[in-house]
C-alpha cells in the first residue's frame, strides 16, 4: 500500500512542480530544462522505489501512475477549469508589432526564443511576425504577417 501512496504523491508532486517551474518543454526546451526534467524525475524515483526493488512494486507503481494519469486526463476533459489549472492558457507574446512584456517577463521567455520560432517557420525578421503565441504545450506558434 505504501508503494502505491508513494507513487501517487510522486506523480502529483512532479506534475505540480513541472507546472509551476514553467512551461518551456518541447521545441523551446534548452539544456537547462533537460537537466530539470531528468534530475527531478530521478530524485522522485529514489523515494518512490525506496528499498523495494521487486517486480511487484514496479508493476503496482506503474499501474498507479497509469491510472492517475488517465484520471487526470479525464478530469481535464470533463472540467474546463481543471484543464486551465493543469495546462494553463495560450498566451500572446507578440501581436501587430507589439511585445506583450508582462507575459514575456512572467513566462521567462526571451525575445530570442520568439525569433527562434520565427526562423523555424522560415521567417528572417521579427517584423514578418504578426502574432507569436505561447501554446499550452510550451511551443511558440508564429502567424506570419501577410504581404501587402
Amino acid at each position, binding site marked *: 500500500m505504501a508503494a502505491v501512496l508513494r507513487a501517487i504523491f510522486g506523480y502529483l508532486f512532479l506534475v505540480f512542480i513541472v507546472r*509551476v517551474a514553467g512551461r518551456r518543454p518541447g521545441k523551446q526546451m534548452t539544456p537547462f530544462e533537460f537537466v530539470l526534467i531528468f534530475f527531478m524525475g530521478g530524485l522522485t524515483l529514489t523515494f518512490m522505489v*525506496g*528499498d523495494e526493488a521487486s517486480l511487484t512494486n514496479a508493476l503496482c507503481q506503474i499501474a498507479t501512475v497509469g491510472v492517475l494519469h488517465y484520471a487526470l486526463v479525464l478530469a481535464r476533459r470533463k472540467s474546463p477549469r481543471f484543464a*486551465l489549472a493543469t495546462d*494553463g*492558457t*495560450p*498566451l*500572446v507574446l507578440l*501581436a*501587430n508589432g507589439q511585445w506583450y512584456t508582462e*507575459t514575456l517577463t*512572467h513566462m521567462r521567455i526571451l525575445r530570442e526564443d520568439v525569433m527562434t520560432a520565427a526562423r523555424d517557420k522560415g521567417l528572417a525578421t521579427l517584423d514578418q511576425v504578426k*502574432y507569436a*503565441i505561447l501554446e499550452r504545450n510550451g511551443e511558440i506558434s508564429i*502567424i506570419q504577417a501577410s504581404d501587402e
Partner: protein
Amino acid sequence: MAATQTAPVEDSIAKIGNEVAVGEDMQFQRRWWRFEKAVWVVFLLIVLLDLAGAFGRGPLAKAHANTRGGTMVVDYERIERFSTPSILTIHFGPSAVVDGRIQLWVSDSVVKELGNQRVIPEPVSSVIGNGGILYTFAATSLPDSVEFALQPSHPGIAHFELRVPGATLDAPLRDEFEAKVVVMP
C-alpha cells in the same frame, strides 16, 4: 450500421485582433502568476529550513544532552529521517563503570521505532526485559562511548529512554535520559 456522431463547429474560442482564435485568459493567468510566486516563496523557505536542519541531518537536528547524575552524555538527532542512517552516541562518565563493566538499558523503541541496526562496540551480553534491552559492555578506561547505528523504520514521533542501572550514584540511584525524536517521512 450506426451513424458516426458529429457536432457543428462553433466559433467559441476568443480571438485576438478579431482574427486569430487564441482563447487567452489573462484573468486566470495573472492569478496563476501570483500563486506561482507564493509557491516559490514556500520552496525557498523549504530549502532554507532544510539547510538549517529543520527537516533532519543539519545543525538544528543535532542534540547534545547530559544526564543529571553525569553518567551519560548523549549525542543524537532530534529530527531523524525515515529509513536514513544516523548515529546515537552515548559517552559514559566515571560513575557508569562498575567492576570494569558498564550496564546500559535502552527502551525497545530504539530497536522498533528508531530501527537500531547494530551496537558499537559489541556488548558482552544483552538481556531483554522491562520494555527494553539491558546491554553490558566491558569497560577498561574512560572516556568510553557506545554508538547505536539507527535507521528509523516508521515516520512519526518516537520516544526513547536510556538508563545506567548500575551507576555508582548517591541520588538519584538510577541515572536516566529520555527524549523525543521526530522521524520525517
